[in-house]
């Protein structure tokens, strides 16, 4: 029965029209204190979108529990009444993962803001999901420790959301993604069962459910507590800024750094339009005549950094860098980074709207991708700024558009879709760190086969048999893929032969 249900959910989009709003409100009122349940349109409005503002929807209700017992009670009710549940942290996600379900409960974890325990000797922190990423590092700083993953939104984004998306950042080549920096999560299933996944040790018995839950976009379990690893703060860091008169040459320099056996703490690249946009905004002193600039960071003990910077400089010179600057002090290092970190707001400053993509490709294909993007700029009549985590091949093209102009948004979406499909064709993936959410759900069809999509639905059903957690996100139904018409074809087989075509 389970098998059939899981597959049924995977075939076509589900309809929750039968959900009775009055009944949901009545049931939730019984388990939530005053002020923890909202259902008037003006109260729902702030929750209509996450960081991907192009997608908006009003939920049926917003629930704001502050205890785990309340989360259990809300989920039990949703389970009984068959109501969709969308969990939300700080709402900074970039793929619409926290986009409300119009017939569902938007479950905000914003009141779970407590750092439960910080153990400097064991180097762990137990935190609630609503704690901000940066707040963990701030709390750990007194002990010379920090939480390594640092997504650009770390001032605002919550750790619960970081786990849901397996968030990265500019230092993950050396320090890993969220999945590498977690020990344990505690959460509640749609059936209202409390589960402890992982442990205070480095592993846990049985299957690696911690890996499965990390990056699962709120589809498997609602988190109520998270144990993260803390690592010692490097004593010293220095940054090298290298300019290139050719983007392909800059890409080759990245490969040469890796080939030299160096894993920099950060390795970022920006193309000329991106450099110009941020320079105007933050005055970081970037060379404006360069076709591309690389930022390479080295951290560790002062001796280690000096040694590594020397090796980096040699490789960059050998790779044809036209200019190399090494940060002379902390202020200059931060200035080098200020531009890179301001890429998104800078795009927002020069264009009414922008659309940020997140494909990852093998490093060696970066030049090819950038050339293709230039052609796409002509094809769609839109400009694109390219910033990326060059060390791990994760691209963030920022497509500039104006939603008030007729069909610009559609063109931007098509532009983005083409970049993502090219990422897959080049041997990469449609999303490196922002998640699929609502935004890239169609492109999932280009990356996975029917069998794989079905398997994802079965995995979801292992945690969420009724399919109520964040339905319609992350994994496309086969019907959606058939309609989208761009499916992964393997070796001449017709994809989804058993699905009716439209």
């Amino acid at each position: 029965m389970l098998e059939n249900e899981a597959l049924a959910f995977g075939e076509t989009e589900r309809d929750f029209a039968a959900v009775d709003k009055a009944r949901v409100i009545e049931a939730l009122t019984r388990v939530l204190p005053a002020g923890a349940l909202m259902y008037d349109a003006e109260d729902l409005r702030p929750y209509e979108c996450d960081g991907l503002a192009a997608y908006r929807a009003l939920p049926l209700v917003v629930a704001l529990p502050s205890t785990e017992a309340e989360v259990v009670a809300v989920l039990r009710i949703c389970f009984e009444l068959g109501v969709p549940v969308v969990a939300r942290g700080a709402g900074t996600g970039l793929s619409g993962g926290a986009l409300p379900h119009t017939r569902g409960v938007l479950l905000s974890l914003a009141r779970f803001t407590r750092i439960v325990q910080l153990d400097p000797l064991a180097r762990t922190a137990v935190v609630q999901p609503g704690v901000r990423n940066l707040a963990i590092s701030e709390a750990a700083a007194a002990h010379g420790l920090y939480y390594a993953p640092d997504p650009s939104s770390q001032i605002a984004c919550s750790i619960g959301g970081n786990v849901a998306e397996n968030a990265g950042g500019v230092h993950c080549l050396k320090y890993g993604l969220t999945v590498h920096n977690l020990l344990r999560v505690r959460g509640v299933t749609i059936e209202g069962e409390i589960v402890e996944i992982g442990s205070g040790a480095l592993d846990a018995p049985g299957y690696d459910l911690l890996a499965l839950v990390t990056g699962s976009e709120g589809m498997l379990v609602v988190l109520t507590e998270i144990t993260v690893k803390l690592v010692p703060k490097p004593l010293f860091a220095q940054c090298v800024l290298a300019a290139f008169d050719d983007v392909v040459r800059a890409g080759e320099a990245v490969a040469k750094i890796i080939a030299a056996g160096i894993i920099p703490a950060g390795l970022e690249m920006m193309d000329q339009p991106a450099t110009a946009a941020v320079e105007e905004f933050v005055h970081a002193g970037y060379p404006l005549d360069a076709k591309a600039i690389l930022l390479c960071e080295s951290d560790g003990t002062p001796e280690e950094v000096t040694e590594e910077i020397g090796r980096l400089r040699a490789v960059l010179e050998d790779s044809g860098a036209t200019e190399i600057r090494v940060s002379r002090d902390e202020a200059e290092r931060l200035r080098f980074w200020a531009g890179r970190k301001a890429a998104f707001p800078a795009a927002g400053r020069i264009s009414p709207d922008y659309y940020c993509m997140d494909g990852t490709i093998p490093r060696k294909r970066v030049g090819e991708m950038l050339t293709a993007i230039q052609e796409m700029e002509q094809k769609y009549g839109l400009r694109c700024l390219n910033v990326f985590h060059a060390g791990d091949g994760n691209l963030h093209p920022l497509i500039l558009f104006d939603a008030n102009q007729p069909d610009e948004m559609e063109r931007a979406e098509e532009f983005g879709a083409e970049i993502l499909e090219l990422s897959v064709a080049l041997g990469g993936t449609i999303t490196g760190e922002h998640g699929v959410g609502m935004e890239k759900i169609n492109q999932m069809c280009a990356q996975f086969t029917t069998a794989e999509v079905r398997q994802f639905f079965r995995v979801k059903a292992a945690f969420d048999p009724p399919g109520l957690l964040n339905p319609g996100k992350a994994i496309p139904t086969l019907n959606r893929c058939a309609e989208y018409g761009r499916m992964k074809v393997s070796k001449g087989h017709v994809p989804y032969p058993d699905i009716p075509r439209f």
Partner: protein
Amino acid sequence: MTTIENEWAERVRAAAAANTPLCLRGSGSKDFYGRAPVGEVFELRANQGVIAYEPTELVVTVRGGTPLAELEAMLAAQGQYLAFEPPHFGAGATVAGCVAAGLSGPRRVTAGAVRDFMLGVKVLDGRGQVMRFGGQVMKNVAGYDVSRLIAGSLGTLGIVLEVSLKVLPRPVAAATLSFELDEATAIRRVNEWGGQPLPVSATLWQDGVLHLRLSGAEAAVQAAIARLGGERVGDIEADAVWSAVREQTLPAFTPRMGETLWRLSLPSTAPALELPGRQVIEWGGAQRWLAGSADAGSVRARAVALGGHASAFRGGDRAGEVFQPLSAALATIHRRLKHAFDPAGIFNPGRLYPEL
């Protein structure tokens, strides 16, 4: 699909139709691990070969039956390695066996485990379907992270046809120091060092002696030696020590008649076990080996009381529970996942838990 994949898919479908349990086996180097293997032996070594390796991408993609030693030699020729230092436990150990067992060596505490280096897999499930999850790139959040789920699943979810692993440059320098310290002091000391920016890459405590390996840039290793003191262990002797820990050839790892070698995975700061037996402490205090005849109930109870779990790694009753029993809620999820990948329950039945 390759010829082997087609043949194997056919065989799996036939086994599923006939409810024939299959014992997935590479070289058999880890036959001792987990609950007793049962079923018709399914030889996986024929599926060998490197599919792609470009050192500058830091990724290698190999077929499951490839000997681990062959893979490591190929990486070493390019100055790279598998940073989780997987134990072989036998000359023929395969890559798929390494992934399925999910075991990591001395460097695990700072470098990460097998699962941390899994970028993608191609698996054959219990329906005879070939599927790919993850990929060959460093960052990938498209779909659930099935590749990491496969690591450590002891072959109960599918046959690993191909694996893409992240590889890293070998550290430029390494040095090993030794210190005479009692158990409690050693545990405290390695945790204190873990909180400082030191290039610690492995720790080992046994019989009042703590070995500490430092790896990284030459300057960082030299600075750490100057700061930490202790006694410098010669490079040849040091290599022998770390290899003996990784491959468990130290006498303390061999259970005598009637004994069990327990692996306790604990928070690194957990106090002394206070259980009878010979002990080896690794991973900055987070992995503790205990060879002796303490009864299973008291070992498990102690592990749980200390915030971790215990497994009967070698010896003992392989027909009973080998791994720490799961909570009811987690056991349900495990059963459903097993069913999702292997509905007929033919892959390594009972190897991990009796009901899987």
